[in-house]
């Protein structure tokens, strides 16, 4: 009996080993591409609806935009074709004409037409924002949508122009009118025209359009109808399975027959998928060095790195002493060794910021050129820091810095507990400050939503803050001189609210060296490229001199691919690394291993 059990055990081990060898630790199924969706976790109960934030549609696979933004460090208006084969625009972006892929079809065989685009735009109006704000005075909102022919759509911009209009129009996700069209009332476009006027009738029409938002979000089509390379077959709490869409206009470019999108509950689960060799590719995931080395040991795994237009900073609430004093902020900048912080917090996914400009270092090279060398680099210099602190009136008693009146000074640095690299960065910063006689501690918030709420309510002195969210320069500087710092753009009018009111937690002054940085940031919306470069130069200098925040490290887009089953991955620094693997397939990049 015991021998039989032993033989059975050996047989099982042999079978398992054989399977493992043939599948190289992966799914082992030919033609199945396995990945995760970096934007969301899978909720099997969510509808197959791209307007639902948890919806079971996957951008680039079964959800399609008109075009795919390259997120070029300097030019936000570069795209790869999506459902739109080509597009033209006037120099001031007052008009965008979109030409659809002539052979585009939905997965049920019906053609993709201009009417689908118009319906999708109508549905986007119910959600508000970007190019489709009902308020006609909103910057960069569309004024009219005209179907020129079955494959051509013209979208015109309203009076309050923005140079982000083209980007926002081309980012429109297109859904089939024969599935989603019934959500819009027959008189929707009449109502929209009415809503863009003024008076009680306009208000009523506006309310009726925004009132559709929930209906659109909760709409659950019985099955997926996709114009992308894949169509959703089934979804369960563990994974979503998509199969190849035979009607996709470039289906010959698509190597995988199926795509599995695995669910995850946290980074740790993604690390384990990668270590097991299960994923053919994974988008940006924060990874500690030890785990990265372990992932690299798995057969076929490779790391690809590229530009990511995001940086992390330490932002000040300038309504609170002593952070209202620029000398104190400068002193802290001179005391923080950003290289050490990056080494501790994000050695694989970040590079120390060369200085504070508000822009990611890669983008800053193009925007600022050599003028970046004229800015203060804030290299670690305790002597300069002491000078700045003395200039601010701070006192040093028994090696500890105190407030000007002699009361204790405790630097409290707030971070959300769930961001492990931020927690480590904050700890490294407080350790450095404690070394230099500044009492400092880290305080964590239970989750990111609570953190943002408390930050906006002005409860924190200093908090870590995402910045440099490019590529559009307006988006970059809006993180510094936007609503968090008092500048609000409502119905085309820029106003500045007092510190501590309406989410103005940064509480910076309305003008810096006689310049209104919020107004300057707003001008980035309408400026031509040459003017933009000039404005960015000014804002970078103001930010560097006044330090509303200290730029700590710039993120690196660290992604993972596995050569065991597929090949043809984008190289390092490729702009497509900022898009989903579904788009890589549409561009003909991914090939099955051995077919190249």
């Amino acid at each position, binding site marked *: 009996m015991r021998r039989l059990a032993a033989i059975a055990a050996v047989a099982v081990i042999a079978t398992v080993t054989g399977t493992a060898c043939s599948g190289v630790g992966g799914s082992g199924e030919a033609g199945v591409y396995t990945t995760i969706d970096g934007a969301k976790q899978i909720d099997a109960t969510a509808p197959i609806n791209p307007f639902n934030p948890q919806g079971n549609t996957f951008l680039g696979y079964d959800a399609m935009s008109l075009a795919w933004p390259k997120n070029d460090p300097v030019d936000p208006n570069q795209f790869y074709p999506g459902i739109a084969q080509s597009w033209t625009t006037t120099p001031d972006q007052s008009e965008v004409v979109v030409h659809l892929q002539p052979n585009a079809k939905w997965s049920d065989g019906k053609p993709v037409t201009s009417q689908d685009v118009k319906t999708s735009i109508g549905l986007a109006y119910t959600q508000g924002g970007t190019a489709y704000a009902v308020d006609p005075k909103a910057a960069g909102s569309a004024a009219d949508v005209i179907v020129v022919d079955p494959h051509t759509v013209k979208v015109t911009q309203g009076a309050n122009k923005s140079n982000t209009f083209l980007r926002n129009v081309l980012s429109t996700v297109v859904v089939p009118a024969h599935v989603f069209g019934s959500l819009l009332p027959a008189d929707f476009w009449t109502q929209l025209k009415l809503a863009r006027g003024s008076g009680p009738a306009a208000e009523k029409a506006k309310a009726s359009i925004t009132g559709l938002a929930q209906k659109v979000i909760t709409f659950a089509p019985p099955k997926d109808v996709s114009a992308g390379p894949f169509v959703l077959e089934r979804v369960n709490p563990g994974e979503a399975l998509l199969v190849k869409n035979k009607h996709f206009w470039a289906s010959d470019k698509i190597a995988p027959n199926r795509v599995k999108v695995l669910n995850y509950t946290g980074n*740790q689960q993604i*690390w384990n998928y990668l270590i097991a060799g299960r994923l053919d590719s994974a988008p940006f995931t924060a990874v500690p060095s*030890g785990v990265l*080395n*372990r992932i690299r040991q798995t057969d076929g795994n490779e790391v690809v790195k590229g530009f990511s237009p995001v940086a992390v900073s330490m932002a000040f609430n300038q309504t609170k002493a002593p952070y209202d004093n620029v000398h104190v902020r400068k002193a802290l900048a001179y005391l923080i060794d950003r290289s050490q912080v990056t080494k501790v917090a994000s050695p694989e996914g970040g590079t120390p910021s060369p200085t504070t400009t508000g822009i990611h270092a890669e983008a800053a090279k193009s925007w600022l050129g050599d003028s970046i060398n004229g800015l203060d680099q804030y290299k670690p210099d305790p002597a300069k820091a002491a000078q700045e602190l003395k200039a601010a009136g701070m006192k040093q008693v028994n090696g500890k810095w105190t407030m000007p009146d002699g009361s204790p000074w405790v630097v409290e640095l707030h971070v959300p*507990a769930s961001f492990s690299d931020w*927690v480590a960065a904050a700890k490294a910063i407080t*350790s450095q400050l404690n070394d230099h006689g500044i009492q400092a501690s880290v*305080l*964590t918030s239970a989750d990111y939503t609570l953190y943002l709420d408390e930050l906006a309510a002005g409860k924190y002195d200093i908090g870590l803050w995402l910045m440099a969210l490019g590529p559009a320069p307006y988006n970059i500087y809006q993180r510094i001189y936007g609503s968090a710092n008092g500048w609000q753009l409502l119905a085309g009018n820029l106003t500045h609210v007092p510190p501590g009111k309406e989410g103005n937690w940064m509480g910076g002054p309305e003008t810096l060296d006689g310049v209104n940085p919020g107004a300057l940031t707003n001008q980035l919306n309408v400026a031509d490229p040459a003017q933009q470069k000039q404005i960015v130069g000014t804002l970078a200098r103001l930010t560097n001199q006044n330090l509303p925040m200290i730029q700590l490290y710039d993120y690196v887009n660290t992604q993972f691919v596995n050569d065991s089953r597929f090949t043809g991955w984008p190289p390092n620094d490729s702009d497509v690394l900022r898009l989903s693997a579904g788009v890589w397939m549409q561009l003909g990049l991914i090939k099955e291993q051995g077919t190249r």
Partner: protein
Amino acid sequence: MTVTSPVAPAPISLRRNFWRGVGRVLRRKPSRMVGVAIVVLFVFMGIFGPLLYPNPLPRDDNALYASPSWAHPFGTDFEGTDVLALVVTGTRYVLLAGLATAVITVAVGTLIGLLAGFHRGRWDSVLMRLTDLQLTIPGLPLLLVLSTVWKFTSPIEMGVVLGLLGWGGIARAVRSQSLSLRERGFIEAAKGLGLPTRHIVLRELLPPMAPYIAMNMLIAVTGAIYAQVGLFFLGVLPFDANNWGVMLNLSVFGGGALSSTAALPYLLAPLLAILLLTLGIVLVVDAMDEIFNPRLREE
């Protein structure tokens, strides 16, 4: 003049006999001696631990997540700080919070249980409904919600909250014992002598239950350690690098200790500390059981 003199040494003799009995009980099973040694070690670490290391603890940028060595028996953390030093200096918070929790759990639970059991009637109904209410409150979800408004910066605050959430079980047990004891002859006699309620409850009813309460207090310490470390591990309580729960959190979510070996010692050190401390307390409770229970002692 000579009548009272032989009576005086009696308490000293009793005390000496008690400690001799304690010594005998501990010696009977070596594991109990180990338990006492572990608890003494942790108490020593709690009192003197922070004095053994410089403040702030030294860091080494060139030894982030270093492997175990003679210099760093449990390696280093993400900042290159010795993990053993973090565990030792973090003992004070854990023990203080545990002790505060135990004291409050036992004080509130015993008081309510005694009053309800002794008085019965309306007192019993009101206090037991209050206890039922307390027992139905889900502790962890409440703590998660509380952590959004209360930062628990001191171990005493932590202990107060955990204690106020944990007295229900002891109150119920003490009430049951009180109901049983109040029917005994010595309580009847005390009542017959017209002794005040306070005397009966504190001097007659409480002492027989003291061993049970003392053991519950020690067990409450272990419960409190798990609860607070768990909350810190979930990341809902304030960051403190040398807190055992924070160390577990950072080793798993920041260092990937469950996915690679680099941060494994950083994970194992606080786990081992929790395990050892719990083991020490359980072994001491085992000894206490025999010390206070005459039937076990006779065996």
